[in-house]
Every structure is written in structure tokens, then in C-alpha cells.
């Protein structure tokens, strides 16, 4: 049974190195990581700054998603972290890592982990553009 190595909703900087270390294992031959980084533009508009807001249940839901993916795939360990609060352009908002004996499982589980976190985690993204306007992403 796969291990859930590290799952964190945090205001601290999150890094691929930390996630990778959290899933490292002598039995795993393959480690796949994902980093979703904050960009300075969105749909052609220039982003000045942004922040994420997390619901109090976000940590629990992130743990549930990690457990589901760990149970579904033939992997060794999974780890995932989502940052909230203000984030500087270029820094990571979401980082994930999966280790497995074989690379196909590691790639597939990491893809699904990222997809499911993005679908399920109760977190919101607020962007302030360089023209002074702002937007809550996905909220028309």
C-alpha cells in the first residue's frame, strides 16, 4: 500500500525538492514531480500580484485526494502541497511528487493527483492586474 508522504496547505514557500524528498525511497526507481507556478500574465492581461485563499477544510480535502490517488495506483509514495496567502510571481502555488517502481505509474498518478487537487481543493485565487482591476479566478 502506497504511503502518503507529506500533505500540506500552507502559507510557507513550497518546493518540488521538499516533495521529492518526501516520496524518496530505496524501492522506487522513478520520481515524477509537478510544479504549478504563478505567472505574470493571465489570458493576455498583466498580473501585478496575487493571493490564494483557503477554506478551513482545504487541508483535510487535500489529504483525502492524496489518499485516493495513493490507493488507486501502483505507486510507492505521494506528496502534495498547496500554498495560500500572497505568492510572488514565479513561485509555486501547487507542488506534487509521486514515486513508483516504474515510470508509467508515477506519471499517471502525478497527473491525476494534480487534476483532482485542482478540481476538489476549496481554494480561491485572487489576481490584481497592472491596470488596477482585480479578479477572482473562475468567478464570472
Amino acid at each position: 500500500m502506497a504511503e502518503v508522504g507529506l500533505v500540506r496547505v500552507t502559507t510557507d514557500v513550497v518546493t518540488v525538492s521538499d516533495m521529492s524528498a518526501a516520496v524518496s525511497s530505496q524501492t522506487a526507481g522513478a520520481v515524477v514531480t509537478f510544479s504549478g507556478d504563478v505567472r505574470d500574465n493571465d489570458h493576455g492581461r498583466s498580473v501585478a500580484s496575487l493571493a490564494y485563499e483557503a477554506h478551513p477544510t482545504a487541508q483535510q480535502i487535500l489529504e483525502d485526494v492524496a489518499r485516493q490517488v495513493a490507493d488507486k495506483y501502483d505507486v510507492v509514495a505521494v506528496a502534495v502541497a498547496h500554498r495560500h496567502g500572497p505568492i510572488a510571481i514565479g513561485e509555486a502555488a501547487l507542488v506534487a511528487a509521486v514515486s513508483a517502481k516504474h515510470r508509467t505509474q508515477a506519471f499517471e498518478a502525478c497527473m491525476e493527483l494534480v487534476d483532482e487537487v485542482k478540481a476538489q481543493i476549496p481554494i480561491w485565487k485572487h489576481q490584481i492586474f497592472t491596470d488596477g482591476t482585480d479578479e477572482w479566478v473562475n468567478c464570472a
Partner: protein
Amino acid sequence: MAVTVRLFAAARAAAGVSELVVSAGTLESVLADAVAAGPGLVTVLPQCSFLLNEVSVREKHSVVNDGDVVDVLPPFAGG
């Protein structure tokens, strides 16, 4: 006692406050009271999902009792 309505993200921005206190009733009556207190919510609510005491609730006729907490969640945008 009464009911606490917690507003997040775009819902908070639209209402101008992060919490409202309204009367017990149904989810529908609670949300109607919330819109009365924060009229800006009217454009955001149709996109929102709701939690009753941190458990998902979809049925508008669900009973909301004194002491309950209703969360108003705009569409998620994690990642």
C-alpha cells in the same frame, strides 16, 4: 443563537463582510436573508456551492437550525 453564514473569496468581496448572522430556517431562507444583508451577493450566489457545518448541502429545503454554520463557496480556483 441564530445561524452564521461564512462568506469566502468572491462572495466575501461581493457582500463586503466575511460573516453574516441570520435566522434559522431552510438553506433557501438563510441565503435569502444573506442577500438582504449583503445585496452584492445576488450575482455571486448562482455560481456558489454550500456547506452546512462543513458538509456539502445541495437541497434548498434542507433545514438550518440555530447554531448551524452555512458556508458560501464560489467556484474553486486552486493550482
